[in-house]
């Protein structure tokens, strides 16, 4: 059977799609002419991937998954559809619609609908499910991933520790769940490694999306002496820009929010996770796995955002320190500690 191995960026998308169409046409013609078994024709069909999100795709966490799947659609020749703002009450129905509709891989974030997603997956052993989750995978078909981006958070902290003049750095975060705690703690640990006099402050806004509140929390920290602030949530960079202090972004490259304010920040790249999951499903070897490791820096699943305007402004010694530590992390000789305890202001 014709096999598409077009997952590299070297081949133009148009060419890829043409190849696949040709392949599908060939298979179809063959099926009609020679009465080939139906499954052979099906194998040439595009893999159908669906995503179910609890929030609108603007939510930064969800957006990173969505962006990677769009890339997969362009580069891996899959079909991709998604449903956003699916509340718990509808979650099972939407998942079942996709599972019944011939979708081979269903992805999403299931923090609020954890049990529902797992229950539905049990009923469809032939469909692969890969969901963002804080707990483990479940055989035979429920794989998980998570935003393991504590490594770049640590690197950002090192920069913050060097750049703070008041020796006080801050984190404005959503709520103290493990996903948030490990980033906050890694940031603080990085700051302390670079500058042992640093004190860390932490504020939680109690929701995942409330930019006006996050902004107020940031302003409160700035009044308390924080001059480099980690914007775990949207709304913080605006406060930092207004008050002329520095910020570290989160989740995606957010330099455009404030080119002079945002130095850099951890970026979560779901591409390695998505690519691996799709490859497994396509080759028929999907098993329930914890794909969290694909979000580590070593796999390209996370990295430090480019410095942009700060390329020139950041002192060379800081850049060197970060580059050295990055290399150690990539070489596997340095491990950033995973600390999921609830951080406390000091």
């Amino acid at each position, binding site marked *: 059977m014709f096999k598409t191995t077009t997952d590299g960026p070297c081949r133009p998308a148009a060419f890829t799609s043409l190849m696949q169409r040709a392949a599908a046409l060939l298979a179809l013609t063959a099926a009609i002419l020679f009465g080939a078994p139906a499954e052979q024709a099906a194998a040439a069909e595009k893999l159908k991937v669906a995503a179910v999100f609890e*929030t*609108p*795709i*603007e*939510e930064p966490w969800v*957006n990173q998954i*969505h*962006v990677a799947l769009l890339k997969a659609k362009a580069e891996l020749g899959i079909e991709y559809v998604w449903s956003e*703002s699916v509340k718990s009450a509808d979650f099972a129905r939407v998942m079942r619609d996709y599972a019944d509709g011939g979708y081979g891989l269903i992805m999403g974030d299931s923090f609020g609908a954890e049990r529902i997603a797992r229950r539905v997956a049990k009923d469809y052993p032939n469909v692969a499910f890969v969901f963002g989750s804080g707990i483990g995978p479940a055989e035979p078909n429920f794989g998980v991933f998570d935003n393991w981006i504590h490594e770049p958070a640590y690197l950002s902290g090192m920069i913050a520790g060097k750049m703070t003049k008041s020796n006080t750095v*801050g984190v404005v975060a959503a*709520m*103290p769940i493990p996903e948030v705690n490990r980033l906050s703690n890694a940031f603080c640990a990085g700051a302390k490694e670079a500058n042992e006099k640093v004190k860390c*402050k*932490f*504020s*939680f*806004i*109690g*929701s*995942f*999306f*409330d*930019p*006006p*509140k996050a*902004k*107020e*929390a940031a*302003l*409160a*920290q700035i*009044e*308390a002496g*924080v001059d480099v602030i980690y914007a775990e949530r*949207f*709304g913080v960079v*605006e406060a930092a820009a207004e008050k002329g202090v520095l910020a570290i972004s989160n989740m*995606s490259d*957010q330099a*455009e*929010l404030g080119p002079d304010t945002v130095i850099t920040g951890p970026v979560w790249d779901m591409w390695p996770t998505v690519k691996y999951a799709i490859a497994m499903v396509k080759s028929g070897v999907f098993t329930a796995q914890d794909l969290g490791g694909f979000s580590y820096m070593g796999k390209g699943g996370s990295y430090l955002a480019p410095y942009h305007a700060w390329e020139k402004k950041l002192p060379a010694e800081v850049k060197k320190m970060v580059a050295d530590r990055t290399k150690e992390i990539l070489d596997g000789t340095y491990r950033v500690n995973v600390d999921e305890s*609830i951080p*406390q*202001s*000091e």
Partner: protein
Amino acid sequence: MDEILAQIFQIGFFAAMIRIATPLIFATIGELFAERAGVLNLGIEGIMLLSAMVGFSAAYFSGSLWFGIAAAMAAGVLSGMLMGLLTVTLGLSQHVSGIGVTLLNSGLAFFLYRLIFGQPSMPPNIVAFKPVAIPLLSEIPVIGPILFNHHALVYAAFILVPLAAFILFRTPWGLNLRTVGENPHAADGAGVNVAATRYQALMLSGALMGVAGAFLSMAQFNAFTFGVISGRGWVCIALVVFGQWSPWRAAGGALLFALIDALQLRLQANSYIDVPYQVFLMMPFVLTIVGMALVSRNARAPAALLMPFRKEER
């Protein structure tokens, strides 16, 4: 401990209180007008969200913030008219209509946003309102920076409270409005058009809620995102009760809520004690409820609140 207190009770703390209170004051006064006329406007949360979206989009494309505010008010007025159609003309349950309007407006806000802006990975933003320092007054030590260095809309909120009290208690229209809310049959007998008065109250209510929503997406923040309202509308419903349907007391309630919210954010940043953060986040809500229980024991809602009016019918 003294050090922490000094850290917290800075000028910025009181300025934050006023900033947080402003949208609450607008929406609470809006809700108050509707309830004084006998209609509980539970569309508040959705009206604020839709207005935040409409105001932001209008400002984004026109480049004029004040045009955005006008558009947000227009969206609020239209929502108020819809609320009027459901509860005044059709006489439907005010609870159900209000929740319906909130659901419709919320859905509409995201739907229109998606139509207009597509799916940006970074929310588009505008240059938000900048604080305007009032000459001379802003130079007064302590009080100046606390009161007189704010967004223009904050000053509008200062003016709104006495203005609302004046309109309600010192003008014929205010008297009509209160009578319609207390005893629509008597008002009708006296020649007041009950339906028209309620429509007017709902439109005014929507316009003020519109400003509140637009404040959040255009002054407090510079983009429309989901979660931009985050239940603030529901807080305002409680503040009206807390304020015993009086503009002054309601504004006081909004300031108290904002004070505690500003305080908890600073306590979080300065906390040396091991207190779960939820305790801090809860504070404004808990203390408002406690305050409400203590202060509002004699509160009396407008007698005709929740009751549709049909002529010739008891």
